[in-house]
């Protein structure tokens, strides 16, 4: 990945006029490939994209996300998933195939304010994203602390092959569930470990674009913090 050409850009910046393929967060205007968001532009393998440094979560099928129930109808719950759209969780997904709108009361399983780990089941422009919790590691979150970071920083928090998140988990004994939408739940039996893990996560959020971040996070975790 290191032979990609990178540059900081803001909306309207011309990244290149070469005949490359425009990918995420760029547009083609005549011969110019133009950035549409604040971020880092990347030219790699004849394609051009911008990695955004700000913005809401853009749902992708199969992404693991954390959402908060904001309302419900008789057939589904609506969840805030830090996106432009609310996520829909159909009642059938939780109650099972023989769900009956008359007999089964949605609030018995999930109510307003509950936090849920879910996957994006379906997402296209014409409808709001559909969620599912029908997997073993998915469902209502009973305990833990919610930390919100920018979705664009999530890859950095995970790290190459999971190195960053493993470093934090091992140093603090915390269990960290990372939603691709930038919402993260941290549980830890030890209060100090919990605070350190949260501090590390916030550090990544603020300094994701600076080099040697993993080393600096390691240093912070090793020091006997407050």
């Amino acid at each position: 990945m290191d032979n990609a050409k990178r540059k900081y850009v803001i909306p309207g910046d011309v990244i290149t006029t070469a005949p490359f393929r425009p990918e995420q967060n760029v547009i083609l205007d005549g011969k110019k490939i133009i950035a549409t968001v604040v971020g880092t532009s990347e030219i790699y393998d004849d394609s051009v994209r911008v990695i955004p440094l700000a913005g809401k979560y853009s749902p992708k099928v199969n992404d693991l996300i954390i959402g908060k129930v904001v309302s419900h109808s008789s057939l589904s719950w609506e969840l805030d998933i830090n996106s432009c759209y609310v996520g829909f969780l159909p009642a059938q997904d939780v109650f099972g195939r023989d769900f009956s709108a008359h007999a089964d009361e949605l609030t018995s399983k999930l109510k307003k304010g509950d936090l849920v780990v879910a996957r994006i089941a379906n997402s296209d422009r014409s409808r709001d994203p559909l969620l599912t919790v029908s997997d073993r590691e998915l469902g209502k979150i009973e305990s833990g602390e919610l930390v919100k970071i920018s979705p664009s920083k999530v890859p950095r928090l995970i790290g190459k092959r999971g190195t960053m998140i493993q470093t934090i988990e091992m140093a603090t004994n915390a269990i960290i569930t990372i939603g691709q939408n930038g919402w993260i739940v941290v549980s830890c039996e030890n209060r100090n470990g919990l605070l350190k893990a949260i501090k590390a996560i916030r550090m990544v959020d603020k300094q994701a674009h600076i080099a040697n971040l993993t080393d600096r996070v390691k240093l912070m975790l090793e020091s006997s913090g407050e």
Partner: protein
Amino acid sequence: MKYRKKLLLTNSFQTEKVPNLGNTPLIDELKSNQIRDFLEQGKRIDGRAFDEPRSISIEIGVIPKAEGSARVRLGNTEVITGIKVQPDRPFPDLGDKGIFICTAEILPLAHPTAEPGPPQEDVIELARVVDRGIRESGMIDLSKLVLVKDKSVIGIFADNSVIDHDGNLFDACAYSSTAAILSTKIPKWEMQDDVPVKIEDQESDAPITTIPVSVTMGRIGKHIIVDPNMDEWLCLDARITITTNSDGNICALQKGGKDGFTLDQLTKCGETSTSVGAKIREIIKQTKETGQ
């Protein structure tokens, strides 16, 4: 080209006849439980003591063209207050007193759920509570603001704009208004042919008699906490705002929220408001001296 009839309506915020669904901020149950658990252990989620307000920073003179102004940060809550001073007609039965009016607005940029439009009941209550705290303390000697009795008086308008909402707007607006009033310069007006004319470069300090300080306390279960932040605010069973003046006497108070207080709790709140208020009064006084 599709005919975009709908766009004609889209810039109007005045079409809100539909009741807002899910527009109040929603606290997640995890956080709500955490707050309660912590309180049981004698702690608050941000590490503060029960009677400890958030960090306060006050800056005056932020709107130089206004006659007075201040900007207050109470934790992450931020308010800007501008004071306008101009001649006005007195109220019908109060011809020997100047006018003091306090308003408040939660700007729509202050919070995702804040909406533009005429103020709702919570914002009106906010403005009136801040107004009473200052007025009932007698902070501004309105009798010194008369140009011609029964005809022409000086009006002081304190307009509070909340620009970031993280709970406890009562105190943030009160501190901002108070600091702004303390820094206000009253221009000099002379009556010429029955019309007040401003004489340039002859301003004087506003006639101040006392410095009111409000302290808002909330009850969650049996615990009382000072200066709730937004997360705590959304869990409150009840709240009370008590304003004390420089003598430590209580000059205004307002209880709010869906539940109540015991007599003991209210008495304790009275004491807390005086002690916490005294500390905050020092911070406000220092601003007047140093400008920050």
